[in-house]
């Protein structure tokens, strides 16, 4: 069942175009990767999907409903959450206040308690640091908070922009294990990663974005093939 469908998306800032027709889909329970060099337009793509970057053309469907051009606060209510680049937790607020803000985007207000319990099970560190100021958490803990804050809205589609940024390898493994579990529980998970190998091994499909276009799409099997990945990443020459 396709939960997220992006069709021929063009977007940019002011007069500058950044995306030149990007298409992708993500289904229930699926994990999709997006990799590509700095400035490829990965964050812009996420921004265009969640409504913070203006669309030039193309459309975004969430579970069949056209959400193109809707406002971010309305999109999250329909079940699409973004864990933004650089986490963007509210460092001056406590951990529980950050999570409570995440509840704002829920459609179903009855399940709030259950949603909080679930993320506390998934990320126990957030329970022990419940009343601490979020800015005092370590980088890995902050990343967990950022993911948890998106999860309490019970998204059907979860977008994560470079969740591994600044984390040590063991913490990265930890975070990715949780993301796999989240996908298996039925959420469509789309991950942007600078470090391609982190996601290519896990994702059903990994799209290589370069200069605002999907240059190649790799399956898990393709990704094992180092040469293929490199070729996709750097263009046809393969270097």
């Amino acid at each position, binding site marked *: 069942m396709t939960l997220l469908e992006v069709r021929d998306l063009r977007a940019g800032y002011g007069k500058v175009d950044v995306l030149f027709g990007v298409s992708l889909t993500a289904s229930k329970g699926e994990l999709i990767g997006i990799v590509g060099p700095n400035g490829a337009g990965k964050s812009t793509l996420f921004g265009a999907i969640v409504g913070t970057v203006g669309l030039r053309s193309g459309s975004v469907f969430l579970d069949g409903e056209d959400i193109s051009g809707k406002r971010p606060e309305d999109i*999250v209510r329909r079940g699409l959450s973004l864990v*933004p680049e650089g986490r963007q937790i509210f460092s001056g607020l406590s951990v529980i206040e950050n999570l409570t803000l*995440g509840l704002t985007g829920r459609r179903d207000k009855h399940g709030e308690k259950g949603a909080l319990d679930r993320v506390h099970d998934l990320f126990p560190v957030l329970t022990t640091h419940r009343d601490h100021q979020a800015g005092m958490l370590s980088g890995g803990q902050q990343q967990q908070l950022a993911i948890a804050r*998106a999860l309490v809205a019970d998204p059907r589609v979860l977008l994560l922009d470079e969740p591994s940024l600044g984390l040590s390898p063991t913490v990265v493994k930890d975070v990715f294990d949780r993301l796999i579990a989240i996908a298996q529980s039925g959420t469509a998970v789309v991950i942007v990663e600078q470090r391609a190998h982190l996601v290519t091994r896990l994702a059903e499909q990994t799209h290589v974005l370069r200069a605002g276009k999907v240059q190649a799409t790799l399956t898990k099997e393709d990704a094992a093939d180092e040469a293929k990945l490199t070729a996709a990443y750097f263009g046809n020459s393969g270097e």
Partner: protein
Amino acid sequence: MIQAILDAVSLGGVYALAALGLGLVFGVMRLVNFAHAELITVASYTLVMTHQFPLVVSMVLSVVVASLMALLMELLAYRRLRGSNPATMLIVSFGVSVLLQKIYELVFGALPRSASVATGLTGTFTVGGVSITTASVVTIVLAVVILLAMGYLIERTKLGLQLRAAASDFQTARLLGVRSNRLIASAFVISGALAAVVAFVNVVGNPQVDPRFGLDITILALVGIVVGGMNSLRGSALGGFIVGAVLSLLNVILGNGRVYAYSWMFVIVIVILLVRPGGILSKFATKERV
């Protein structure tokens, strides 16, 4: 002596409320709403024009009118400016301020309108041989109650949490589902209601309302939020309090030299800002830029 302290605390309290109203709107929009003055003014006119009504009715009306006016400002003038640079927004708010002053002049005339409002509060009473004005005590009680209520709203409620989150990062707050239009409108409505409280206290003290009635207090409250720290509501309120209290004390201390009260107050303000450029409660050390 005791009266001087009470006066200082009560004026400080009033300025704290005015600064809080400005700080709320600044927090969510990065807008220094100069036209806050005209919210105070319209609430004051409302009190004067309805002085024949029971006091409570008159007060409620002034809160409603000021809140509606704040809402209209947001809808008609500021909504389009969201995300513009702060200088643009400040200039527009000057424009709104002047425009409203002219409208008040057309409607109410340039000369002061006066009527005794809440005459019960103009007297004095004696405690242990010291004569105290009722107005100062009532003002202090009112300011404390409202400040506590605001503290509760901001620290303990969902709306308050959203206001704090939006003040630090509105874009991320929206990503989490915070409805921007609704939240900004709420901030304006609350700032309008606070303006009405400030108006009430001021009208009791000086029932001569003219089109520029709210200007002085707004300018001083702006000084207050800079002194206290624009990025924190607590700082704004504290700064407002300091400015009001210092001004009131200076008036007493300087005696005949009180024409220089403003000058001395600004000397104090400048010294505070030299020591703490981001304001007293600024959370972030100001980065070296030169």
